[in-house]
Protein backbone atom coordinates (compact mmCIF):
# COMPACT_ATOMS: atom_id res chain seq x y z
CA UNK A 1 0.00 0.00 0.00
CA UNK A 2 2.80 2.41 0.90
CA UNK A 3 6.38 2.18 -0.30
CA UNK A 4 9.43 4.35 -0.06
CA UNK A 5 12.56 4.04 -2.12
CA UNK A 6 15.87 5.40 -0.93
CA UNK A 7 14.11 8.08 1.11
CA UNK A 8 16.41 10.65 2.73
CA UNK A 9 16.02 13.93 4.55
CA UNK A 10 18.89 16.19 5.49
CA UNK A 11 18.65 19.25 7.72
CA UNK A 12 21.82 21.11 6.81
CA UNK A 13 24.67 18.75 7.57
CA UNK A 14 22.49 16.52 9.74
CA UNK A 15 20.86 13.53 8.07
CA UNK A 16 17.64 12.75 9.93
CA UNK A 17 16.44 10.04 7.55
CA UNK A 18 18.91 8.07 5.49
CA UNK A 19 18.05 5.89 2.47
CA UNK A 20 14.95 4.34 3.97
CA UNK A 21 13.16 1.63 1.99
CA UNK A 22 9.86 0.95 3.68
CA UNK A 23 7.02 -1.29 2.54
CA UNK A 24 3.71 -1.18 4.39
CA UNK A 25 1.30 -3.87 3.29
CA UNK A 26 -2.44 -3.49 3.16
CA UNK A 27 -4.28 -4.60 6.28
CA UNK A 28 -1.22 -4.75 8.51
CA UNK A 29 -0.25 -2.87 11.60
CA UNK A 30 3.31 -1.83 11.02
CA UNK A 31 5.25 -0.34 13.91
CA UNK A 32 8.30 1.86 13.70
CA UNK A 33 10.47 1.81 16.77
CA UNK A 34 13.82 3.30 17.57
CA UNK A 35 15.53 5.47 20.16
CA UNK A 36 14.96 9.23 20.54
CA UNK A 37 16.15 11.17 17.55
CA UNK A 38 16.24 8.10 15.30
CA UNK A 39 14.26 9.97 12.62
CA UNK A 40 10.84 8.34 13.09
CA UNK A 41 8.84 11.56 13.16
CA UNK A 42 10.84 12.98 10.27
CA UNK A 43 10.01 9.86 8.28
CA UNK A 44 6.30 10.41 9.05
CA UNK A 45 6.57 14.03 7.96
CA UNK A 46 7.97 12.80 4.65
CA UNK A 47 5.18 10.24 4.28
CA UNK A 48 2.42 12.75 5.09
CA UNK A 49 3.87 15.50 2.91
CA UNK A 50 4.59 17.89 5.78
CA UNK A 51 8.23 17.77 4.66
CA UNK A 52 9.74 17.28 1.21
CA UNK A 53 12.48 14.64 1.01
CA UNK A 54 16.01 15.57 -0.01
CA UNK A 55 16.16 12.37 -2.00
CA UNK A 56 14.09 9.33 -2.80
CA UNK A 57 10.53 8.49 -3.73
CA UNK A 58 7.23 7.58 -2.08
CA UNK A 59 4.50 5.44 -3.63
CA UNK A 60 0.94 5.07 -2.39
CA UNK A 61 -1.16 2.32 -3.98
CA UNK A 62 1.51 2.12 -6.66
CA UNK A 63 1.31 5.82 -7.59
CA UNK A 64 4.16 8.24 -6.95
CA UNK A 65 3.11 10.86 -4.37
CA UNK A 66 6.53 12.32 -3.60
CA UNK A 67 5.69 15.76 -5.00
CA UNK A 68 2.17 16.03 -3.57
CA UNK A 69 1.56 18.29 -0.58
CA UNK A 70 -0.03 17.15 2.66
CA UNK A 71 -3.54 18.26 1.65
CA UNK A 72 -3.45 16.18 -1.53
CA UNK A 73 -2.13 13.14 0.31
CA UNK A 74 -4.86 13.50 2.89
CA UNK A 75 -7.47 13.50 0.18
CA UNK A 76 -5.90 10.38 -1.33
CA UNK A 77 -6.55 8.62 1.98
CA UNK A 78 -3.46 9.09 4.12
CA UNK A 79 -4.42 10.27 7.58
CA UNK A 80 -2.00 11.10 10.34
CA UNK A 81 -1.82 12.05 13.97
CA UNK A 82 0.98 14.10 15.45
CA UNK A 83 3.41 13.36 18.25
CA UNK A 84 2.95 16.88 19.58
CA UNK A 85 -0.75 17.47 19.98
CA UNK A 86 -1.84 19.41 16.94
CA UNK A 87 -5.52 20.26 17.29
CA UNK A 88 -7.75 23.33 16.80
CA UNK A 89 -7.55 24.67 20.36
CA UNK A 90 -10.31 27.32 20.36
CA UNK A 91 -12.86 25.15 18.59
CA UNK A 92 -15.12 22.69 20.33
CA UNK A 93 -14.17 19.03 20.41
CA UNK A 94 -17.09 18.31 18.12
CA UNK A 95 -16.02 21.00 15.66
CA UNK A 96 -12.45 19.66 15.62
CA UNK A 97 -13.76 16.35 14.37
CA UNK A 98 -16.60 17.78 12.28
CA UNK A 99 -14.26 20.02 10.29
CA UNK A 100 -12.08 16.98 9.58
CA UNK A 101 -15.13 15.06 8.33
CA UNK A 102 -16.21 18.07 6.28
CA UNK A 103 -12.95 17.88 4.34
CA UNK A 104 -14.41 14.82 2.56
CA UNK A 105 -17.50 16.71 1.48
CA UNK A 106 -17.69 18.85 -1.65
CA UNK A 107 -19.51 21.57 0.29
CA UNK A 108 -16.50 23.33 1.79
CA UNK A 109 -16.85 26.25 -0.62
CA UNK A 110 -20.53 26.64 0.19
CA UNK A 111 -20.85 30.17 1.57
CA UNK A 112 -24.56 30.20 2.13
CA UNK A 113 -25.97 27.23 4.00
CA UNK A 114 -25.24 26.60 7.66
CA UNK A 115 -22.47 24.10 8.23
CA UNK A 116 -24.81 22.31 10.62
CA UNK A 117 -27.02 21.43 7.66
CA UNK A 118 -24.37 18.99 6.39
CA UNK A 119 -26.09 16.06 8.08
CA UNK A 120 -23.78 13.30 6.94
CA UNK A 121 -20.73 15.26 8.09
CA UNK A 122 -22.11 15.89 11.57
CA UNK A 123 -23.21 12.30 11.81
CA UNK A 124 -19.75 11.04 10.88
CA UNK A 125 -18.19 13.35 13.49
CA UNK A 126 -20.56 11.98 16.12
CA UNK A 127 -19.70 8.39 15.20
CA UNK A 128 -15.97 9.01 15.44
CA UNK A 129 -16.33 10.74 18.80
CA UNK A 130 -18.30 7.81 20.15
CA UNK A 131 -15.82 5.31 18.74
CA UNK A 132 -12.90 7.15 20.36
CA UNK A 133 -14.85 7.73 23.58
CA UNK A 134 -14.94 11.51 23.55
CA UNK A 135 -18.64 12.02 22.90
CA UNK A 136 -19.30 13.26 26.40
CA UNK A 137 -16.75 16.02 25.89
CA UNK A 138 -18.11 17.10 22.50
CA UNK A 139 -19.17 20.61 23.53
CA UNK A 140 -15.99 21.49 25.41
CA UNK A 141 -13.30 23.62 23.83
CA UNK A 142 -10.42 21.45 22.66
CA UNK A 143 -7.88 23.41 24.68
CA UNK A 144 -9.83 22.72 27.87
CA UNK A 145 -9.49 18.95 27.51
CA UNK A 146 -7.12 17.04 29.75
CA UNK A 147 -3.86 16.01 28.09
CA UNK A 148 -4.95 12.40 27.62
CA UNK A 149 -8.21 13.42 26.00
CA UNK A 150 -6.33 15.74 23.67
CA UNK A 151 -4.31 12.74 22.54
CA UNK A 152 -7.57 10.95 21.78
CA UNK A 153 -8.87 13.97 19.89
CA UNK A 154 -5.66 13.91 17.86
CA UNK A 155 -6.63 10.43 16.67
CA UNK A 156 -10.29 11.32 16.18
CA UNK A 157 -9.38 14.14 13.79
CA UNK A 158 -7.32 11.74 11.70
CA UNK A 159 -10.06 9.10 11.71
CA UNK A 160 -12.78 11.53 10.68
CA UNK A 161 -11.10 12.09 7.31
CA UNK A 162 -11.96 8.46 6.44
CA UNK A 163 -8.42 7.46 5.51
CA UNK A 164 -7.32 4.06 4.24
CA UNK A 165 -3.86 4.43 5.75
CA UNK A 166 -3.33 5.83 9.23
CA UNK A 167 -0.02 7.16 10.50
CA UNK A 168 -0.01 7.39 14.31
CA UNK A 169 2.99 9.14 15.86
CA UNK A 170 3.37 7.99 19.47
CA UNK A 171 -0.33 8.26 20.28
CA UNK A 172 0.17 7.10 23.85
CA UNK A 173 2.82 9.68 24.68
CA UNK A 174 2.01 11.50 27.91
CA UNK A 175 -0.79 9.11 28.89
CA UNK A 176 -0.99 7.35 32.21
CA UNK A 177 -0.21 3.61 31.92
CA UNK A 178 -3.92 2.73 32.21
CA UNK A 179 -4.94 5.25 29.56
CA UNK A 180 -2.14 4.03 27.32
CA UNK A 181 -3.42 0.49 27.66
CA UNK A 182 -6.95 1.56 26.80
CA UNK A 183 -5.69 3.50 23.82
CA UNK A 184 -3.76 0.51 22.56
CA UNK A 185 -6.92 -1.58 22.77
CA UNK A 186 -8.64 1.02 20.59
CA UNK A 187 -5.81 0.92 18.08
CA UNK A 188 -5.99 -2.85 18.01
CA UNK A 189 -9.68 -2.53 17.16
CA UNK A 190 -8.92 0.01 14.43
CA UNK A 191 -6.32 -2.32 12.94
CA UNK A 192 -9.15 -4.60 11.84
CA UNK A 193 -10.40 -1.90 9.47
CA UNK A 194 -7.40 0.24 8.55
CA UNK A 195 -3.82 -0.17 7.51
CA UNK A 196 -1.84 1.45 10.31
CA UNK A 197 1.72 2.62 10.72
CA UNK A 198 2.47 3.23 14.38
CA UNK A 199 5.43 4.92 16.00
CA UNK A 200 5.62 3.58 19.52
CA UNK A 201 8.11 4.19 22.25
CA UNK A 202 7.08 1.25 24.35
CA UNK A 203 8.76 -1.63 22.57
CA UNK A 204 6.77 -4.34 24.32
CA UNK A 205 3.49 -2.71 23.37
CA UNK A 206 4.65 -2.43 19.78
CA UNK A 207 5.66 -6.09 19.76
CA UNK A 208 2.27 -7.10 21.08
CA UNK A 209 0.23 -5.13 18.55
CA UNK A 210 2.15 -5.32 15.31
CA UNK A 211 2.37 -7.66 12.37
CA UNK A 212 5.56 -6.05 11.19
CA UNK A 213 8.20 -3.88 12.77
CA UNK A 214 10.83 -1.55 11.37
CA UNK A 215 13.61 -0.49 13.70
CA UNK A 216 15.27 2.83 13.00
CA UNK A 217 18.60 3.96 14.32
CA UNK A 218 20.45 7.18 13.39
CA UNK A 219 18.08 7.76 10.49
CA UNK A 220 18.55 4.36 8.87
CA UNK A 221 16.64 1.13 9.01
CA UNK A 222 18.48 -1.14 11.38
CA UNK A 223 16.15 -4.11 11.07
CA UNK A 224 12.74 -5.14 9.84
CA UNK A 225 10.58 -8.19 10.34
CA UNK A 226 7.97 -9.81 12.51
CA UNK A 227 8.02 -9.11 16.24
CA UNK A 228 9.65 -12.47 16.84
CA UNK A 229 12.38 -11.78 14.31
CA UNK A 230 13.04 -8.35 15.80
CA UNK A 231 13.24 -9.76 19.31
CA UNK A 232 15.99 -12.13 18.30
CA UNK A 233 17.86 -9.68 16.06
CA UNK A 234 21.32 -9.23 17.52
CA UNK A 235 21.90 -5.71 16.13
CA UNK A 236 18.62 -4.50 17.59
CA UNK A 237 19.38 -6.02 20.96
CA UNK A 238 22.76 -4.32 21.04
CA UNK A 239 21.65 -0.94 19.78
CA UNK A 240 18.33 -0.58 21.38
CA UNK A 241 16.58 -3.33 23.25
CA UNK A 242 19.55 -4.31 25.31
CA UNK A 243 19.79 -0.88 26.82
CA UNK A 244 16.32 -1.16 28.20
CA UNK A 245 17.01 -4.49 29.83
Amino acid sequence: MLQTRNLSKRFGAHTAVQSVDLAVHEGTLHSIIGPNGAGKTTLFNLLSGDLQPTEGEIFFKGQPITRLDSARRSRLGIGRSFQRTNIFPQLSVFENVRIAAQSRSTASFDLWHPASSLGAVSQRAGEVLREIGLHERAEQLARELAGGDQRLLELAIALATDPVLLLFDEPSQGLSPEDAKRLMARIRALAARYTIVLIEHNVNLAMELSNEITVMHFGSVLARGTPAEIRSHQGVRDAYLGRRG
Partner: protein
Amino acid sequence: MKARSLGALALLALIVALTPLLVRYPTLEAQMLISGLLALGFSFLLGQMGFLSFGQATFNGIGAYAAALALLHWHVPLVLLLAIGILAGTLSALVVGVLSIQGVGVYAVMLTFALNEMAYFSAFQLKGITGGDNGLRGLIRPDLFGFSLSSSLTYYYLVAVVFVLAVYVVLRIIDSPFGHVLRAIRENEQRAKAIGYEVRHFKIAAFALSGAISGLAGALYALLYQFVPLEAIDFNTSTNIVIMGLLGGVGSPFGPILGAAIYTLLANFLSEVWARWPLVLGVIFCCIVLFLRGGLWELGPLALRRIRHLGGGNVAADSKPL
Protein backbone atom coordinates in the same frame (compact mmCIF):
# COMPACT_ATOMS: atom_id res chain seq x y z
CA MET B 1 -27.87 30.96 11.11
CA LYS B 2 -27.98 30.89 14.86
CA ALA B 3 -30.98 32.52 16.50
CA ARG B 4 -28.64 34.71 18.55
CA SER B 5 -26.99 36.18 15.44
CA LEU B 6 -30.34 36.73 13.81
CA GLY B 7 -31.65 38.51 16.88
CA ALA B 8 -28.56 40.72 17.00
CA LEU B 9 -28.99 41.52 13.31
CA ALA B 10 -32.64 42.47 13.82
CA LEU B 11 -31.66 44.75 16.68
CA LEU B 12 -28.92 46.30 14.57
CA ALA B 13 -31.38 46.89 11.71
CA LEU B 14 -33.76 48.58 14.12
CA ILE B 15 -31.05 50.87 15.47
CA VAL B 16 -29.90 51.70 11.96
CA ALA B 17 -33.46 52.47 10.88
CA LEU B 18 -34.28 54.72 13.83
CA THR B 19 -31.05 56.60 14.46
CA PRO B 20 -31.39 59.33 11.81
CA LEU B 21 -34.97 59.94 12.90
CA LEU B 22 -33.89 60.56 16.47
CA VAL B 23 -30.61 62.36 15.82
CA ARG B 24 -30.45 64.08 12.45
CA TYR B 25 -26.94 63.75 11.13
CA PRO B 26 -27.63 61.52 8.11
CA THR B 27 -24.31 62.15 6.37
CA LEU B 28 -22.30 61.35 9.49
CA GLU B 29 -24.51 58.35 10.14
CA ALA B 30 -24.04 57.08 6.60
CA GLN B 31 -20.30 57.49 7.11
CA MET B 32 -20.57 55.38 10.27
CA LEU B 33 -22.21 52.56 8.36
CA ILE B 34 -19.70 52.76 5.50
CA SER B 35 -16.81 52.66 7.98
CA GLY B 36 -18.62 49.75 9.58
CA LEU B 37 -18.45 47.85 6.29
CA LEU B 38 -14.74 48.59 5.97
CA ALA B 39 -14.07 47.43 9.51
CA LEU B 40 -16.21 44.35 8.85
CA GLY B 41 -14.13 43.50 5.77
CA PHE B 42 -10.97 43.83 7.84
CA SER B 43 -12.30 41.79 10.75
CA PHE B 44 -13.48 39.05 8.47
CA LEU B 45 -9.85 38.35 7.60
CA LEU B 46 -8.45 38.80 11.10
CA GLY B 47 -11.27 37.39 13.21
CA GLN B 48 -12.23 34.45 11.05
CA MET B 49 -8.99 33.52 9.31
CA GLY B 50 -6.36 35.09 11.55
CA PHE B 51 -4.88 37.26 8.81
CA LEU B 52 -3.90 40.82 9.76
CA SER B 53 -4.36 43.08 6.73
CA PHE B 54 -2.84 46.52 6.86
CA GLY B 55 -3.98 47.40 3.38
CA GLN B 56 -7.78 47.47 3.39
CA ALA B 57 -7.85 50.99 1.92
CA THR B 58 -6.58 49.50 -1.35
CA PHE B 59 -9.90 47.74 -1.90
CA ASN B 60 -11.92 50.68 -0.62
CA GLY B 61 -10.08 53.12 -2.89
CA ILE B 62 -10.20 50.97 -6.00
CA GLY B 63 -13.90 50.29 -5.43
CA ALA B 64 -14.54 54.02 -4.99
CA TYR B 65 -12.55 55.00 -8.09
CA ALA B 66 -14.15 52.29 -10.23
CA ALA B 67 -17.68 53.30 -9.27
CA ALA B 68 -16.89 57.01 -9.62
CA LEU B 69 -15.30 56.58 -13.06
CA ALA B 70 -18.19 54.45 -14.28
CA LEU B 71 -20.58 57.16 -13.16
CA LEU B 72 -18.55 60.03 -14.64
CA HIS B 73 -17.85 58.49 -18.00
CA TRP B 74 -20.76 56.13 -18.66
CA HIS B 75 -23.56 57.34 -16.38
CA VAL B 76 -24.04 53.82 -15.15
CA PRO B 77 -27.19 53.28 -13.02
CA LEU B 78 -26.81 53.19 -9.26
CA VAL B 79 -27.29 49.49 -8.61
CA LEU B 80 -24.66 48.71 -11.21
CA LEU B 81 -22.31 51.23 -9.61
CA LEU B 82 -22.47 49.27 -6.39
CA ALA B 83 -21.84 46.06 -8.33
CA ILE B 84 -18.83 47.68 -10.00
CA GLY B 85 -17.51 48.72 -6.59
CA ILE B 86 -17.88 45.14 -5.37
CA LEU B 87 -16.24 43.72 -8.47
CA ALA B 88 -13.31 46.15 -8.38
CA GLY B 89 -12.80 45.51 -4.67
CA THR B 90 -12.91 41.76 -5.25
CA LEU B 91 -10.42 41.81 -8.12
CA SER B 92 -7.95 44.04 -6.30
CA ALA B 93 -8.22 41.83 -3.22
CA LEU B 94 -7.57 38.73 -5.34
CA VAL B 95 -4.30 40.27 -6.50
CA VAL B 96 -3.32 41.43 -3.02
CA GLY B 97 -4.40 38.10 -1.55
CA VAL B 98 -2.44 35.94 -3.99
CA LEU B 99 0.70 38.01 -3.42
CA SER B 100 0.53 38.60 0.31
CA ILE B 101 -0.26 35.05 1.43
CA GLN B 102 3.12 34.10 -0.02
CA GLY B 103 4.57 35.87 2.97
CA VAL B 104 4.78 34.31 6.41
CA GLY B 105 3.71 36.12 9.58
CA VAL B 106 4.80 39.72 9.73
CA TYR B 107 6.04 39.59 6.12
CA ALA B 108 2.52 38.92 4.90
CA VAL B 109 1.33 41.97 6.83
CA MET B 110 4.11 44.03 5.28
CA LEU B 111 3.04 42.90 1.82
CA THR B 112 -0.51 44.16 2.32
CA PHE B 113 1.02 47.45 3.45
CA ALA B 114 3.49 47.67 0.56
CA LEU B 115 0.80 46.92 -2.01
CA ASN B 116 -1.38 49.59 -0.44
CA GLU B 117 1.46 52.08 -0.85
CA MET B 118 1.86 51.07 -4.49
CA ALA B 119 -1.86 51.51 -5.12
CA TYR B 120 -1.72 54.88 -3.42
CA PHE B 121 1.19 56.15 -5.49
CA SER B 122 -0.40 54.86 -8.67
CA ALA B 123 -3.57 56.79 -7.83
CA PHE B 124 -1.43 59.82 -7.03
CA GLN B 125 0.46 59.62 -10.32
CA LEU B 126 -2.49 58.86 -12.60
CA LYS B 127 -3.87 62.36 -12.31
CA GLY B 128 -5.70 62.09 -15.62
CA ILE B 129 -7.83 59.24 -14.27
CA THR B 130 -8.07 59.72 -10.50
CA GLY B 131 -7.54 63.45 -10.23
CA GLY B 132 -4.40 62.82 -8.17
CA ASP B 133 -4.36 64.76 -4.92
CA ASN B 134 -7.23 66.96 -6.06
CA GLY B 135 -9.46 63.93 -5.89
CA LEU B 136 -12.07 62.81 -8.37
CA ARG B 137 -14.73 65.50 -8.53
CA GLY B 138 -17.95 66.25 -10.31
CA LEU B 139 -19.94 63.14 -9.40
CA ILE B 140 -23.69 63.52 -9.25
CA ARG B 141 -25.52 60.87 -7.27
CA PRO B 142 -27.91 59.14 -9.70
CA ASP B 143 -31.52 58.25 -8.97
CA LEU B 144 -32.50 54.78 -7.89
CA PHE B 145 -35.10 53.50 -10.38
CA GLY B 146 -36.37 57.07 -10.86
CA PHE B 147 -36.40 57.72 -7.14
CA SER B 148 -34.26 60.71 -6.17
CA LEU B 149 -31.52 60.16 -3.59
CA SER B 150 -30.35 63.75 -3.58
CA SER B 151 -31.31 64.36 0.04
CA SER B 152 -28.81 62.97 2.49
CA LEU B 153 -31.55 61.28 4.50
CA THR B 154 -32.86 59.24 1.55
CA TYR B 155 -29.29 58.32 0.62
CA TYR B 156 -28.71 57.27 4.22
CA TYR B 157 -31.53 54.77 3.90
CA LEU B 158 -30.04 53.31 0.74
CA VAL B 159 -26.74 52.87 2.59
CA ALA B 160 -28.63 51.40 5.54
CA VAL B 161 -30.40 48.77 3.43
CA VAL B 162 -27.19 47.78 1.66
CA PHE B 163 -25.37 47.70 5.00
CA VAL B 164 -27.89 45.42 6.71
CA LEU B 165 -27.91 43.11 3.70
CA ALA B 166 -24.10 42.96 3.72
CA VAL B 167 -24.02 42.13 7.42
CA TYR B 168 -26.60 39.41 6.83
CA VAL B 169 -24.47 37.91 4.06
CA VAL B 170 -21.36 38.00 6.26
CA LEU B 171 -23.24 36.29 9.09
CA ARG B 172 -24.31 33.54 6.70
CA ILE B 173 -20.77 33.11 5.39
CA ILE B 174 -19.41 32.89 8.92
CA ASP B 175 -21.87 30.13 9.69
CA SER B 176 -21.30 28.28 6.41
CA PRO B 177 -19.01 25.30 5.78
CA PHE B 178 -16.57 27.76 4.20
CA GLY B 179 -16.58 29.95 7.31
CA HIS B 180 -15.85 26.92 9.45
CA VAL B 181 -12.82 26.07 7.32
CA LEU B 182 -11.51 29.62 7.75
CA ARG B 183 -11.65 29.25 11.52
CA ALA B 184 -9.85 25.91 11.32
CA ILE B 185 -7.12 27.66 9.31
CA ARG B 186 -7.01 30.43 11.90
CA GLU B 187 -6.64 27.90 14.70
CA ASN B 188 -4.07 25.63 13.10
CA GLU B 189 -3.04 26.04 9.51
CA GLN B 190 -0.79 22.99 9.40
CA ARG B 191 -3.52 20.71 10.69
CA ALA B 192 -6.05 22.22 8.30
CA LYS B 193 -3.73 21.19 5.49
CA ALA B 194 -3.15 17.79 7.03
CA ILE B 195 -6.87 17.03 6.95
CA GLY B 196 -7.02 17.87 3.27
CA TYR B 197 -7.87 21.55 2.85
CA GLU B 198 -6.16 23.56 0.11
CA VAL B 199 -5.47 26.36 2.55
CA ARG B 200 -4.22 28.71 -0.18
CA HIS B 201 -7.53 28.60 -2.05
CA PHE B 202 -9.53 29.34 1.09
CA LYS B 203 -7.29 32.24 1.98
CA ILE B 204 -7.56 33.79 -1.47
CA ALA B 205 -11.34 33.36 -1.44
CA ALA B 206 -11.50 35.05 1.98
CA PHE B 207 -9.49 37.95 0.60
CA ALA B 208 -11.89 38.23 -2.32
CA LEU B 209 -14.85 38.43 0.07
CA SER B 210 -13.14 41.02 2.23
CA GLY B 211 -12.37 43.00 -0.92
CA ALA B 212 -15.99 42.74 -2.05
CA ILE B 213 -17.26 44.28 1.19
CA SER B 214 -14.58 46.98 1.10
CA GLY B 215 -15.20 47.79 -2.57
CA LEU B 216 -18.91 48.11 -1.85
CA ALA B 217 -18.05 50.51 0.96
CA GLY B 218 -15.87 52.44 -1.47
CA ALA B 219 -18.70 52.85 -3.98
CA LEU B 220 -21.12 53.95 -1.24
CA TYR B 221 -18.52 56.41 -0.02
CA ALA B 222 -17.96 57.93 -3.48
CA LEU B 223 -21.71 58.46 -3.83
CA LEU B 224 -22.07 59.84 -0.31
CA TYR B 225 -19.61 62.70 -0.82
CA GLN B 226 -19.97 62.77 -4.63
CA PHE B 227 -16.21 62.95 -4.56
CA VAL B 228 -13.30 60.52 -4.19
CA PRO B 229 -10.35 62.04 -2.34
CA LEU B 230 -6.92 60.46 -2.59
CA GLU B 231 -7.40 59.73 1.09
CA ALA B 232 -9.76 56.89 0.13
CA ILE B 233 -6.79 54.75 -0.87
CA ASP B 234 -4.33 56.20 1.63
CA PHE B 235 -2.45 53.95 4.02
CA ASN B 236 -3.71 56.13 6.88
CA THR B 237 -7.20 54.94 6.06
CA SER B 238 -5.98 51.34 6.34
CA THR B 239 -4.59 52.11 9.77
CA ASN B 240 -7.87 53.66 10.84
CA ILE B 241 -9.71 50.54 9.67
CA VAL B 242 -7.39 48.39 11.79
CA ILE B 243 -8.07 50.62 14.79
CA MET B 244 -11.83 50.46 14.27
CA GLY B 245 -11.69 46.66 14.07
CA LEU B 246 -9.58 46.19 17.17
CA LEU B 247 -11.51 48.84 19.07
CA GLY B 248 -14.77 46.99 18.65
CA GLY B 249 -13.25 43.51 18.61
CA VAL B 250 -12.87 41.13 15.68
CA GLY B 251 -14.33 38.06 17.38
CA SER B 252 -17.87 38.86 16.29
CA PRO B 253 -18.97 40.73 13.15
CA PHE B 254 -20.82 43.16 15.38
CA GLY B 255 -17.57 44.23 17.07
CA PRO B 256 -16.06 46.09 14.11
CA ILE B 257 -19.41 47.76 13.40
CA LEU B 258 -19.45 49.10 16.94
CA GLY B 259 -15.79 50.06 16.69
CA ALA B 260 -16.34 51.94 13.42
CA ALA B 261 -19.33 53.80 14.84
CA ILE B 262 -17.42 54.90 17.92
CA TYR B 263 -14.34 55.81 15.92
CA THR B 264 -16.33 57.88 13.42
CA LEU B 265 -18.15 59.71 16.19
CA LEU B 266 -14.93 60.49 18.05
CA ALA B 267 -13.20 61.58 14.85
CA ASN B 268 -16.10 63.87 14.03
CA PHE B 269 -16.85 65.51 17.36
CA LEU B 270 -13.56 65.45 19.20
CA SER B 271 -11.69 66.77 16.18
CA GLU B 272 -13.90 69.85 16.25
CA VAL B 273 -13.20 70.72 19.85
CA TRP B 274 -9.62 69.51 20.09
CA ALA B 275 -7.14 69.13 17.25
CA ARG B 276 -5.10 66.56 19.19
CA TRP B 277 -8.04 64.21 19.56
CA PRO B 278 -6.07 61.17 18.28
CA LEU B 279 -4.37 61.31 21.67
CA VAL B 280 -7.66 60.34 23.33
CA LEU B 281 -8.10 57.61 20.77
CA GLY B 282 -4.58 56.41 21.46
CA VAL B 283 -5.27 56.11 25.17
CA ILE B 284 -8.52 54.21 24.59
CA PHE B 285 -6.79 51.98 22.09
CA CYS B 286 -3.96 51.15 24.48
CA CYS B 287 -6.41 50.33 27.25
CA ILE B 288 -8.27 47.97 24.97
CA VAL B 289 -5.17 46.23 23.71
CA LEU B 290 -3.88 45.87 27.27
CA PHE B 291 -7.04 45.04 29.20
CA LEU B 292 -9.79 44.06 26.80
CA ARG B 293 -8.26 41.98 24.06
CA GLY B 294 -11.63 41.09 22.61
CA GLY B 295 -12.48 44.75 22.03
CA LEU B 296 -15.46 46.73 23.28
CA TRP B 297 -17.89 44.12 21.98
CA GLU B 298 -16.52 41.80 24.66
CA LEU B 299 -17.97 44.06 27.32
CA GLY B 300 -21.44 42.71 26.56
CA PRO B 301 -20.72 39.01 27.17
CA LEU B 302 -18.41 39.97 30.03
CA ALA B 303 -21.20 41.86 31.78
CA LEU B 304 -23.64 39.05 31.03
CA ARG B 305 -21.25 36.53 32.49
CA ARG B 306 -20.84 38.63 35.61
CA ILE B 307 -24.59 38.75 36.06
CA ARG B 308 -25.00 35.03 35.44
CA HIS B 309 -22.08 34.31 37.68
CA LEU B 310 -23.82 36.14 40.49
CA GLY B 311 -26.86 34.03 39.76
CA GLY B 312 -24.70 30.88 39.75
CA GLY B 313 -25.22 30.14 36.06
CA ASN B 314 -22.99 28.39 33.57
CA VAL B 315 -19.94 30.47 32.61
CA ALA B 316 -18.24 28.38 29.96
CA ALA B 317 -21.22 28.19 27.64
CA ASP B 318 -21.01 31.88 26.92
CA SER B 319 -17.38 32.09 25.99
CA LYS B 320 -17.93 30.68 22.50
CA PRO B 321 -17.70 33.22 19.71
CA LEU B 322 -20.85 34.05 17.80
